[in-house]
Every structure is written in C-alpha cells, then in structure tokens.
C-alpha cells in the first residue's frame, strides 16, 4: 500500500480525496460479492484485482509507459482496441461507475447529464482515479450528445482524439467507419511512434478475437438451466475485461469458463432450482456499479445475461482474420464494430432483434430494461424494446436509476414485485 501511495502521489492524484473512495470500496465489495455462496474458484483472480484495483493494474501500466509504451483511454465499445494494440499501445476503459465521482462532474456539467458521463469527467478533474491520470491520450467518439460535449471539456485537460461514429448503418456508413478507423490508426502511429503493419494488425485482431471468444464461453454456460456463475460475478468479469491486458483477460476467462462448463456438467448451480432468470438490457454498468445486480440477486432472481456494453455487446461478433492488406483489415474491423447495436443509431431494429433473440437463447423468465438517468437514447428506445418483448410474450420491467443509493429500497420493491409476478 505504501508503494501505491507513492504511485498515486506521483500521478498527481488528490490522495486525501481518493482515500475516501479507498475506504468504502472494500466494504461495498465485501457486502455485494464476498457474501455470495459457492462462487467459482476462478473468481479468485477477479477478487484479487478488485482488492487492489487502483494498485496492481495501474502499476503495470506505469511500468509499460517506462518502456515507452502509450496508454489510450477509451469510453465506448465502438473504439477498436485492435488498432492500438497493433501499434504496441495499451487500451484501458475509462468509464466511471461510482457516485463518488459524480459530484466532481457536476461542477462542470449540467445536472441533467447521465451519471456515467458525470462520473467519468469527475474522476479526471478531481484527480481521484489512477487510470484517468495514467492514460496518455483519451479517445472519444461521437455517440451521444452528452459525451460529445463532455469530451470538449476533458480535451482541455488531456490530449483527446475523437472518432466520428456514423449514426446510421447504411453501406456508406460502414465504409465511412472504416475510413475513421484508418485515420485513427494514423494518429496512433504518430502518437506511439510505431508503424502498424498487416502482420501486427492481424495479430492484434487475433488477440482480441480470442478475448471475445473466451468471454463468450462464460456467457454460453449461463444459458444452461444450471446457473454456474452469478450475474454479479459475470458482470465483474466483464467490467475488469475493459482494464486488463487482453491476453491475460482471455486466459483467465477461459479458466473460469472451463470451471463453469464443468459445473454445468456436474449440475452445480449458485442458485436454488427454479430461481427466476432475468436478462438486463440497456445502458452500460461501469465498475463499481453493481447496484441492480445486487438487488435482483437478493430478491429471489438471478441475472443470466446482460444485453449491454458491459455484456454481450462487448464480445458478440468476431473480426475476420488473416486478411492481406490494411484496407481490408480496416473494413473487416468496421463491419464487426458496426454490428454492435447501441441506441445512438437510428433506426436500431437490430438491437430489438438482439434482445428478443438473447431472451430466448438464455431462456429468461423476464427482462429488466434499465437506463441511466438522463440517458434519453436508451430511455426512448425502451418503447420499442417493451413492445417487441410484449409481442414475444416475455414480461419486462423498465427501470431508470443512477449511481446513488437513495432509490435502492424503491427499486427493491419494484424488482421483488416483478419477480413475484413471474410466478
């Protein structure tokens, strides 16, 4: 811990303020996570990472920086990690999931901004998160209006590169996104001083595909009647995947998947038989946002799938491998990323189809559609989500919430009532 303190000081962090966060996180993690029974052993790695979340990985990143490597901070699953990795750079997710940072964001942002954006900005400006300090460059994207404007504010404090994400998915938009990826690649080459070659990019594409496949394996086991891993644990794996080294992420996820597969074979479930199966859909749950999962899984139900960026949207679909030219590779990347279905696109029927498909694949009893307060994109899209689920005969509960704990009891009543309704 003494080493951490030195590191945080060197990073120019507000150490006193950061202490307040360090004090609450272990209790929260203990209450939410360590209280669970019969967890897979493979979760040990993730527990270990969380226990020193602002220590272990940050010091690895700083070590890498000393060797001349650059760290890119990203905020969205549309930004292609492959390009950065091909230039020997490192990607770290930077989404803030704690109420702790919200206040700092509110100093510069309107109150009516979603908590994810407020927390992300607050974490940077208040200097209370090492990852936000370490990143050499932030990569933003033109997804929602709130983020676009927030990037302007962050850009005053840190080098910022913005990718222009199309808002539709026509052929020409896919071509355009490929061009954006190419431009980004040029920027990454310039910033890292490393050339991106066909071979390097193929390697990077392979690495990230392997990571996606490993995460998908864990999810695959959640489709079974036997629930080998709690929703909370699966969520934690996803949240940490945004920060971790991709090869290690794949290795650890594969280990955990082996164990989950074995559990399915042996009929080992973390929930009693007949526990209601819930899919969560909607806005991302950035670490340490475990609120909904915790309420659901202590209200007699289990989360078996997240149709979220911290869920299926992160690993579904692979990039075509072994292509012979950079242009083809950029196009292949674009095609894969544009298969992602975020509510910032219009029309967005493919997301609705995804939700109905996933609800069936994961054999869910009900869907809880959630959006972060003030995210009007996902809030508006709820109408279509609910309609499609109603037509498919799948019960759905809509929830809007933020990072504060003040509505926890009200949410619990709704969620318990929903679970009671499922029979």
């Amino acid at each position: 811990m003494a080493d951490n303190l030195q590191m945080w000081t060197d990073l120019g962090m507000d150490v006193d303020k950061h202490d307040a966060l360090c004090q609450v996180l272990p209790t929260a993690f203990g209450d939410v996570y360590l209280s669970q029974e019969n967890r897979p052993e493979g979760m040990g790695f993730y527990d270990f990472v969380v226990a020193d979340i602002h220590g272990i990985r940050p010091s690895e990143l700083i070590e890498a920086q000393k060797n001349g490597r650059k760290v890119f901070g990203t905020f969205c699953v549309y930004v292609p990690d492959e390009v950065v990795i091909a230039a020997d750079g490192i990607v770290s997710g930077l989404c803030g999931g704690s109420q702790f940072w919200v206040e700092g964001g509110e100093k510069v942002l309107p109150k009516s901004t979603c908590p994810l954006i407020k927390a992300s900005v607050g974490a940077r400006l208040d200097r209370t998160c090492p990852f936000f300090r370490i990143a050499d460059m932030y990569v933003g994207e033109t997804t929602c209006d709130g983020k676009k404007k927030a990037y302007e504010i962050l850009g005053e404090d840190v080098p910022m590169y913005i990718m222009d994400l199309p808002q539709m998915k026509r052929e020409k938009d896919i071509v355009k996104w490929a061009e954006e990826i190419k431009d980004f690649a040029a920027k990454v080459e310039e910033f890292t001083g490393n050339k991106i070659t066909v071979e390097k990019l193929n390697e990077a594409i392979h690495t990230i595909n392997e990571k996606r496949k490993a995460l998908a394996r864990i999810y695959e086991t959640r489709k079974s009647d036997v629930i080998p891993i709690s929703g909370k644990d699966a969520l934690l794996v996803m949240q940490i995947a945004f920060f971790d080294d991709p090869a290690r992420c794949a290795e650890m996820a594969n280990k955990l998947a082996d164990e989950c597969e074995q559990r399915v074979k042996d009929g080992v479930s973390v929930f009693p038989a007949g526990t209601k199966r819930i899919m969560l859909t909607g806005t991302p749950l950035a670490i340490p946002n475990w609120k909904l999962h915790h309420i659901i899984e202590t209200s007699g139900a289990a989360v078996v799938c997240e149709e979220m960026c911290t869920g299926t949207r992160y690993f579904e679909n692979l990039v075509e491998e072994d292509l012979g030219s950079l242009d083809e590779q950029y196009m292949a990347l674009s095609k894969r990323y544009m298969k992602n279905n975020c509510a910032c696109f219009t029309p967005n029927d493919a997301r609705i189809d995804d939700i109905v498909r996933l609800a069936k694949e994961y054999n869910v009893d009900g869907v809880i559609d959630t959006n972060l307060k003030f995210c009007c994109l996902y809030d508006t899209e709820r109408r279509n989500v609910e309609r499609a689920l109603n037509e498919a005969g799948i019960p759905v509960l809509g929830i809007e919430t933020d990072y504060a704990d003040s509505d926890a009891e009200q949410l619990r009543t709704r969620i318990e009532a929903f679970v009671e309704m499922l029979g």
Partner: protein
Amino acid sequence: MGFIGIDIGSTCAKTIVIDENSAIVYKDVCPTGWSSVDTANDIRVRLADAGHVIGEDPCVATGYGRVSIPYADKTITEITCHCAGAIELFGYRDMVVVDIGGQDTKIIEVAGGMVRNFWMNDKCSAGTGRFLEVMANTLSVSPDQLTALAANGSDTSISSMCTVFAESEVISLIGRGESKENIAFAVVDSIVRKVSSQAGRVNMSAQPVVLTGGLCDSEYIRKALSKELGTEVETNPDARYAGAIGAATFAKKIKR
C-alpha cells in the same frame, strides 16, 4: 385461528385479520410514525389484546416498511398484495387497480387473478396522498375538507406536476383571490391527471377499474378520476386495507 396481514405504508400502518372463510374479523389503522420498531410493537400488542397471538396466527407483512416487522412469517410486496386484496374486495379477476398511497401511486393490471403488469410512481409526490396533504396545508384545510371543497370548484388549473412548484402556484392563486373551492378543484384535477398519465398504457375502458389506498373514501376523487379515465371507477369502504387484506390472504397459505 386468524390470518394476519400487516401493510406498513409511508403514512399509515394497516392491520387485518381474516378467518378461515376470509371474513374480516379485525381491522386497525394507525400512523406509521417515526420508529418502525415501535410501530411493529404497537401492532403486536393491539393484536394480542384482540386475541391474535403472533407466533400462533400466521402473519404476512407488506408495504414499504414490510422488512421492519420482524415477527412476520413472510414479506410480500405491496404490488402483489394489492392485487390479491382487490380480488377479495371487488371479486374481479381481470381489472386495473389504481392505488393512491401516501408517497406513491401504483397502477396494477390484473389478468386471470394475477399481476400482469404494474407501474409505480415513487420518484416524486405528484399524484399521491402527500401532494394532497401539502396543498391542503397551504390552503389551511384538512385533506378531507379539500376534496369536499373541490366538488364545488371549477375552471382553475395548476400546470406544474412538481409538488414544490405546484405549491407556489397555489400560493399565487391565493394571492390572486381565487376561491378555495376553485383552488381545491385544481389540486384534485392535478392529481387525477398525473395518475391518468401514469396509466397511459393500460386499456381502462375494457375492464373494471378500482381505486384503493387512503383516498378511496373521497367520493369526489372517485368521480374526478372516473371522468379523467373515461370509465366508472369503483371503490369500497375497506379499499384502504387492500394491501393488508391481500397480505392476510397470503398468510392463509402459510403452513404451520
């Protein structure tokens, strides 16, 4: 043997005991108060005085304070209990239950005797008993007097749904010399509009609509709501006990 249902709402705690034939043999309402421990104890003592001993008679707790009844055999949410209670009271298996509570409003769609869907306003006090209370206070009348006054008012409206802003609107209406009747009318009108906007997605005209909760005694509220929803809203003198009655019916299913 009796079956006990306790509904700890935000303002009132309701207790019901039913017998084997589901007839109500005991009913009690008291303010929830500050200390849930005290409230829980009071209820237990009063039940014992009436011959219903906790530990012998099965007991189910519901309402937002359900977890603070340590002696309950089971807790069930108010949504499920209101559904069951409304079925007991009104006899329908398909209906819409509108429950205007102290701090929240619930719309429950009941199909085949089960909850099919529900909507809850628990974020703000607009459209709840609390809103009525605040406005009554501003007008220096009791909530009952307010609804009585409203029956004789007309043609005034409050545009803001937020209690805080609505209160200042009421104050400026008073300042303008608007009659109490008209302001009371506007207050009730605001509540029924809020409730009806919440119920926007349920088809009200195709099935019976029933009103439960603390405001069920007001004939004027019932009428205003009927008008706003475009269908005759039914109520029942015991409808404020709907949650507790529902809880008691679930207590019947507890095996000793």
